[in-house]
């Protein structure tokens, strides 16, 4: 699953991934979208850019 908060500063990011991914998939520049989401610090920006959701992969195996 995507992180709920920024690992470094604790800002809420969970509710921003949907918009970020939708707009980037449409071809917008990630930097612009991050600006629009109000993410000014590089900790939050890198968390948004580098998080990979592995939930579907993990769900295939037994807990």
């Amino acid at each position, binding site marked *: 699953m995507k992180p*709920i908060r920024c690992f470094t500063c*604790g800002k809420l990011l969970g*509710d921003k991934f949907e918009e970020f991914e939708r707009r980037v998939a449409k071809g917008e520049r990630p930097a612009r979208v991050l600006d629009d989401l109000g993410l000014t610090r590089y900790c939050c920006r890198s968390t948004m850019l580098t998080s990979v959701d592995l939930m579907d992969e993990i769900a295939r195996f037994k*807990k």
Partner: protein
Amino acid sequence: MELEVRKLTNEEMEFLLSGADPAFANALRRAMLREVPIMAIDEVEFTVNDSAMYDEVLAHRLALIPLRTPDGYSLPSECKCGEGRCPKCSVTFELKREGPAMVMSGDLKSSDEEVRPVSDSIPILKLAEGQRVELTAIARLGFGKEHAKWQPGLVTYKYMPVFELDEEACDACGACIKSCPRNLLQLVEDKLKITYIERCSMCRACAEACPKKAIRISGDQTKFIFRIESTGTLPPERILLGALDALEDKCREFVKKVKKL
């Protein structure tokens, strides 16, 4: 001591504190981070969890959801119930979903309408076909010094930058203007001027670039530019007031102890 509020919104506050000193400014900052109680999920009871996520991981994710914190709740340590489970010191959230579904923060059913997630669209857990999750989460007041989930936001300050120019040595060559990463320097009628001094990060690139060593950059240790960024649990001015209350209480208690000597 003077306070000048520069910006105030529901989530952000910027103010200039002047006539103070670094020790006081830092005490204020740390009190805001550590001593202002807010609500966060503290205990989770699982009835069913068929998902691929372990109980502990799910409980941790639930705890990180910022909750709006109204007045009137008492600290579990000071509550008469003594258990941290009564309606005066705790709020219960019920969650019951069956897959396939994306469980969102909005699916949490709170026992108090006023204590609810800051945003309803935070994905918590993905459930595959046939998987179920059923749990009760208990939120309580707590302090940032115990866990970062109880930190009401981010508080930073910096010294007010001071830009000093030796006007006799300066020959307006412009080397400093090119060096400034924030483009704050400019020439006005052949005289070097700094615009928006508050935006200066005090990197001293201009001072280093100047061949005549005419620029001196320093910080004014009596003036502080504060920034409070709330996670949405409390409005920023309430974070400031809460910190002042905490500092006041600490001082009172200390005075009491000293007077007993």
